[in-house]
Every structure is written in C-alpha cells, then in structure tokens.
C-alpha cells in the first residue's frame, strides 16, 4: 500500500475527488476536483502548487562529489557553479539512458540529484573509488512545485525581494515562514516556476505559508493530471512513458540513447571520461536509430474524420500515454507516439513521438493512428519543434 508524502495531511484534506494514484509508492493526487481543468488553467494563468515529493532524491556530499558526478553523469557538472542546477541524463556503459533528472549544486562539495527511478544502488556502485557520501534523501525531503505566472509574486511575499534575482535553473537557500528551505527555479510545466525543498519535519509549515500567501494570487493545489498536460506542451519527456530506463528493459530494442530521446543537447562528449562516452561518440559517428519529435495533428483532417461518423472531434480528457503507431505518408510504420495531449492553450492536438531519423525533420508530414467508433484510421500529423508552448516568462 502506498504511503503519504510529507504534505499528505494537507493535500488529503483538500482533495475532494479522492482521485489518487501511486507514484513511487506514495499517494499522489491526480486532481483535487473531479476534473483537472481549473488546475491546468491555474498553472498557466495564476499559480499551482504541486506535491512532487515522490521524486527520488540523492544528496551527494564529499571532497570528490564533483568528480564523481562528472564521471557518472552524461551532462558535465564540473562547470556547474554553486547555486545552479542543470538538467541532464545518465547512461550505462553502452550509452543507454538509465534516467534523467536535475543536478543541483548546493555547495562546493554538496550536490543533489533527482531521478524518476530508484538510483541509490547504482550511484553507490559507481562511487567506490570516490570520496563521497550518498544519502537517499527521498523520504527525508518534501518537495513542492510552485508553477505559474504569479508564482514569483507569491514567493516574494514570503521570502522577500531576493527571489526576484533567482534566474532560470538557479537556486537559493532561504527561509519560508521561518523554515529553512532550498528554492530552485525549476519545474516540469515549461512555465515560470519554482521548486521548494524542505525537511519533512517542517513540510506542513511551508505548505501553509505558501498557500496563505498565494491566496491573493489565486493559487490552486494542483494534481498530476494538470501537470501532465503542461509537460507535454513544454515538450518534456517522461521516463517510463516516452522512454524506459535501460536497467528495466527486458529487450535491447526498448533501450534508448540520449540522442534518441532528444537529450543530445545535454551531453558534453569532448571532456574527461564519463559512463557511456565511447558508445555515444560512436553513435554520433554512425547515426542514431531513433529521434524524438513533437507532432501536431492536422486538425481539419481530424475533425473531418469524426464528422464522417456524425461526431464532433473527440479529444482526450487529459494527457494520454498509451503508445500509438506512426506511419509515413507511404504507409510504412516509422515509429510510435508515446504520449500526447490536447493543448487547451494552443488549440492543437499534440503528441511526443519516437520516429526513424529519416522522418524527423520539422515539417515532415506523418500519419498517426486515430480510432473512431472502434475503427482504425490515420490522420496527418506534422513534425513540430518542441517546446510546443514556450512563454517568455519561463526564463524572464
């Protein structure tokens, strides 16, 4: 049976829908009301407060912390300044992705890694020749994600004007409602937003002070369903949905390299040795088997298809994550859409897909399978660069 996060006493009171799911063994809320719509709009127009405590978190201390992470991470952390975060992934020896997440540098010899899958044993195994201590801080820390256009105003109200100086992917140690916290300008919505890292013992105090300060800025507690739509609009991939950790795959073809899942930009190949480096260099020379792309359904064709059945176009209520075949215009299967959502902001039906590289150029027209009244059809979908939605306030 799942357990509650440090914020469970508060969130469970607010969750009138009783609509929960199990995330990494924790009770997490899909939506507080019967439908996630109001929560989605709060993320884009006001502010949403999401409990993301189940993220796996590892605190790395020690003289060799930097050297250790430089060795295990595919993204270079050796040049990461104190009070900055970066997004990256890490691979096995064959260059296959194990997980993606952020690394935050809290101090010279103190880093924090987030992960989607349990990674403690693997980190420990790689740390043998390094002078580091690895703490699994998953259960010790509560994490709140405060996202949306008014999120900064809310934090400034409690933590003061210094919050305004916090740049995209920066972090800051500060106090919220008298409690020491770490605030990072990060998130999974592609909007202006922050994540607040607090010791479990003081979690509720922080929750209360944010919700109280947020009242005047129309803050809403937000569940995972609304965040899932936002992350698709932002073009963020998800481990276990858009790709799979190499160490959970039964078959080789399920594994992915960073280049194949659109994370090539996070890799620094020309540097001191890191895990998977040789394989990744070879891949750059020989080409990748897959590419991750954004797809936008051809709406008029989608609408026409439903109209043939006398139906209005039927849209998924939220984000979906059951893979759908993708075909070339000649009818050859060239990949699969791994997740998608109707974007209420863009008025576009979006998908994130893995396709063979020949079909990955922006503007390429592919075919995506659509089922209407139990019958399978295909409608055109065009390869579109991600993020689909990228408001200037995200970085401003």
């Amino acid at each position, binding site marked *: 049976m799942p357990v509650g996060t440090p914020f469970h006493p508060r969130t469970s009171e607010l969750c009138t829908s009783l609509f929960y799911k199990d995330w990494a063994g924790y009770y997490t809320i899909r939506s507080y009301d019967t439908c996630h719509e*109001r929560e989605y709009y709060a993320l884009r127009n*006001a502010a949403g407060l999401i409990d993301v405590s189940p993220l796996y978190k590892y605190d790395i201390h020690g003289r060799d912390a930097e050297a250790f992470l430089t060795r295990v991470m595919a993204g270079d952390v050796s040049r990461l300044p104190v009070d900055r975060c970066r997004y990256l992934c890490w691979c096995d020896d064959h260059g296959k992705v194990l997980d993606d997440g952020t690394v935050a540098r809290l101090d010279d010899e103190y880093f924090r890694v987030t992960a989607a899958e349990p990674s403690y044993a693997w980190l420990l195994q790689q740390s043998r020749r390094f002078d580091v201590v690895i703490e699994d801080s998953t259960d010790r820390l509560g994490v709140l994600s405060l996202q949306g256009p008014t999120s900064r105003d809310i934090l400034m109200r409690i933590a003061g004007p210094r919050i305004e100086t916090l740049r995209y992917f920066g972090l800051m140690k500060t106090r919220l409602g008298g409690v020491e916290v770490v605030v990072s300008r990060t998130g999974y919505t592609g909007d202006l937003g922050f994540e607040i890292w607090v010791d479990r013992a003081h979690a509720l105090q922080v929750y209360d002070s944010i919700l109280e300060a947020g009242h005047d800025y129309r803050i809403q507690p937000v569940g995972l369903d609304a965040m899932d739509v936002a992350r698709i609009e932002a073009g963020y991939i998800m481990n276990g949905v858009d790709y799979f950790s190499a160490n959970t795959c039964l078959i080789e073809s399920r594994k992915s390299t960073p280049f194949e899942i659109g994370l090539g930009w996070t890799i620094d190949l020309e540097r001191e040795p890191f895990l998977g480096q040789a394989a990744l260099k070879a891949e750059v020379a020989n080409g990748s088997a897959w590419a991750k792309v954004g797809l936008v359904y051809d709406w008029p064709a989608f609408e026409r298809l439903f109209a043939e059945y006398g139906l209005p176009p039927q849209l998924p209520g939220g984000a979906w994550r059951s893979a759908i075949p993708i075909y070339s215009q000649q009818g050859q299967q060239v990949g699969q859409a791994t997740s998608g959502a109707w974007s209420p902001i863009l*008025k*576009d039906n979006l998908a994130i897909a893995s396709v063979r590289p020949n079909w990955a150029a922006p503007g390429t027209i592919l075919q995506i399978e659509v089922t209407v009244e139990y019958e399978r059809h295909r409608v055109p979908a065009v390869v579109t660069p991600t993020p689909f939605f990228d408001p200037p306030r995200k970085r401003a």
Partner: protein
Amino acid sequence: MSKMTFKNKPTSARYDAIVVGGGHNGLTCAAYLARAGHRVLVLEKRPVVGGAAVSEEVFPGFTYTSCSYVVSLFRPHIMRDLQLARHGLEIIPLEASFLPLPDGDSLCRWSDPHRTRREIAHFSAKDAEVYPEFSLAMSQLARFTKSVIDNPAPDPASLRPRELSQALRASEGLRMANADQRFLYMKLLTMSAADFLDQWFESDVLKAPMSVSGIIGTFLGVRSPGTAYVLLHHYMGEIDGAMRAWGFARGGTGGISNAIARSAQAFGAEIVTEAGVSRVIIQNGKATGVVLENGDEIHAPTIVSGLDPRRTYLGLVGEENLHADTVEHLGHYKFRGSSGKVNLAVDRLPEFACRPGDGPHLYGDIAIAPGVGYLERAYDQAKYGEFSERPYINMVVPTLVDPTMAPPGKHVISCFVQYAPYDIKEGAANWPTRREAFGDAVVDTLAEYIPGLKDSILHRQVLTPWDLETEYGLTEGNIFHGELSLDQLLFLRPLAGWAKYQTPVRNLWMCASGTHPGGGIMGASGEMAAKAILGRRAA
C-alpha cells in the same frame, strides 16, 4: 503580454487594402489579407484596438473588460490559422452557471453532469433528468447549424450555380437531421425562449437562467417569438474542439483583439490608432481610398469597413452615393440597443448570502434572473422607455482565473445588464443624466444577493447604450452591430442583396458583426470577408 503600442501615422499613402476600424473583426480580416501577402493598413479611431473587445485600465491597477466580457463562438480554426495562441490568446472555460435566488436558495449548473443533476433535482426531479436530454437535442441541432456559421450566407433568391452550391454547403448539416430534429428546428426558429423551454421543463428556477440567452443583445423579452433560436447559440460554442459553452479571455476580451493585432502585424499589416476615418473616397462608383479626420488621404484598391452598417453606408459612403432604395432599407435595419455594462473594482471577492465564501460556483457566469416573470417585467419597463429597475444581470469575476487584472487580493466584477433601452423616455442624448441612476439600480439589485457589495466597491464604471455608441461606435448601443433577429440574419444581413460582404460601392467591403454570421466575438465575419476579397482577386 506587454502592452501594445501603435503608430499614429501611416508610413505610406498607398496600400493594397485599408481596413477602417480596428475591432476584432477588422483585425481578423486584416490578418487574413496580410497573410495572403497584401499590404494592409488598419485605421482605428481610438488609442487602443479591439473596438468592443477591449480591455482598459479605467481605474489604476484594475483592468476592465469594458464592453464584451465572455467569448463563446470564436472560431477555433481562426486561432490556428492566425497562430493566436502564440500571440498570447488564451480562452479559459467558465466552470459553472450560478443563479443566486433572493430567498437564500440557489442553483448552480456545472460541467459535471451528476453535480448538475443533483442541483436541479432540488427544484424538480423530473427536470433534473430531462436536462441532459435537452442538452443532447440542442447539441445535435447546434452541430447542424455549424456549417451555416462557417460559410457565407447563400442567397435563396438566386439560381446562380455558385449560390446553389453555397446553399448546399450551408445546409450540409441540416441534411443529416432526421424528421424530429427538423421539426424541433422549426419550433426553435418560431417560438419564444420561454415557450420553448416550457415544453421541456417545469421549474421556473431552471427556465429563467436558460431563457436569457434568447434575449441578450435584442430588444425582445423571453416571451417574444423568435427568441428560442438563440438558445442554440449556447450549444454552438466551441472551446477546445468540443462544443463547450463560454470562456474568459486572459487579460479580458482585449486579450483577443491584441492577439489578433499581433498576428496581423507579424503577417506585415500596419495598424494605426487615433486615426478616425471621415469618409471613403469614391470615384466613378468605386472606392479608391479614405479621408482621415485630419484631412489626410490614403489610397488603396480595396477598402474594408469594420464599422456597423449604418456607419458604413451613411457615414463613410454618404447618402448621396447610394440609391434611395438602399437608404430606405437601411432605415429599417434595427439597432435599438437594449443593454448596458457596469464594471466594478472591489477590494474583496463578492460573497453571496446564499452560498457564502470562495468557491468554484464563482468561476463562471452568475445570473441575476430569479424567474421568467422577473425577466418579462424587466422587459416591460424597457418597452416604455425606462431601464429595468431590477434588471437581468450577467456577472463574471475574471480576476478569479486571471488575477493579474487587479492588484493582489482585489477583484474586477463585470456586469452585463439588460434592459437599458437606447431610446429612454428622456431621449437618448439625456442618458448621461440617468447614467448613475442606472448604475445604482444595478448595484442595488446585486446587493440584494451580495450584502457586502456596496462596502467593497472601490470604483464603478457605468456604460449606457449611449456611451457604447459615443465611445465605442456601436450605433444605438447595439452590441451586435444590429439585432440578431431572424429578419436580420443570413442573406438578410445587413441588407437583402448585399450579404456577401460587398456593398453597392465597388471595392468597398464590410467585415464586421453587421454581416453574416455576425454577433459576439467570433471572428467569422472578418475571416469570411477576407476570403471573399481574396476570392474576388483570384477570379
């Protein structure tokens, strides 16, 4: 989105097309023309674009969505064609329709059907179950009608192949209807909203707020024949592809206009504000340019008017350039505005006596319409030249979903008020002397439901039909550029024979709400006018 600034002088004296009036339809037309590669100039009289779809900071720190306040029928394909989302457009669906009652009771209709059923059952167990059946029947009819609003209105008096094929296309939807649905459609076209609803429901509390959609913007009462048809419009609204009801625009309805303006600019259109047009230059029966109020002349082979029919024909063109018949018909075109607008800046969220506190019931439209009789009485007063002492009010609190429209913790309340007849018995020009009394009637009415309202008001803006005319260019204060009654729709809008965005003056076109399909923030008139203009060019 940052505030928009515009030039106040055109950069050239010659363009491919000039659009007179920067309302949302004028901007839409301009954007489509610019997208097709034309050099387009938009001339707007006021310092801001949007016409009646405008957001203004009338009181410091508070953004009023001055005139129009919700959006329902804005065509989704226009949002995609013009990439409006990327230019800042966002429409947020209203969550509920809330009806407070004077006796402390209330009815709230939600998007959650079970919750709605429970609410209605409190008044009538039968109505609670009929309600979804009614919605289904209306949604089916609305779908048949969609092809009518997405195509130019065919002329039934013409046998030209082009007209016939347009007629076929427009009736495409209705051909899918079965006999029962066609009969129902006929009833909708001919009955009053109240009578039509009587055939389905027994509860007055349910029928009253439903019937008001039949009267908005018309000088008719809920018992006047022909008002049932507009009920359909409530089921035609499309948000997110699905047929959904109504939505807020982020930043007020000016947010829509600004997004269209940005899109038009991105396609190369030039928008000039504080540039009123005094007339269209006509040479040998052809429009060749415009004269600005400052006397400057600007030329273009295509002139498009975003003004209403009276302002276009009698203002820009002038009676001397029209046939006497046309002038005569135009005289019969009904404006007779019937509504006003009251915008309030308040220091706290309104708290209803019947449902105290903050909650999702406030995240939608709130109707003061406690009974069919109440609505008809409100109309009675208007018939004899008075504003309703206890009017129908449609109220929204946009700051709930877009808190940036007011300082933290404070709110904006936007109230659509009917009836406020343009021709009050004191004479329309004397509206300014009645303005505050009208505002008081609205606030007094609301205060009966929101006891703390008066103490919370920081600022009040009252717009009478006369104000809508003088400030926003809406003749007689009609919010739709002329009534949306059956005798003024389709091939009859604005005038029989001139329903295809053309006018008797060659090269002068119309693109706004006074043309088919007209009404509300739809963009359809602007888009179809642009397509008619581009089609003519191609031919």
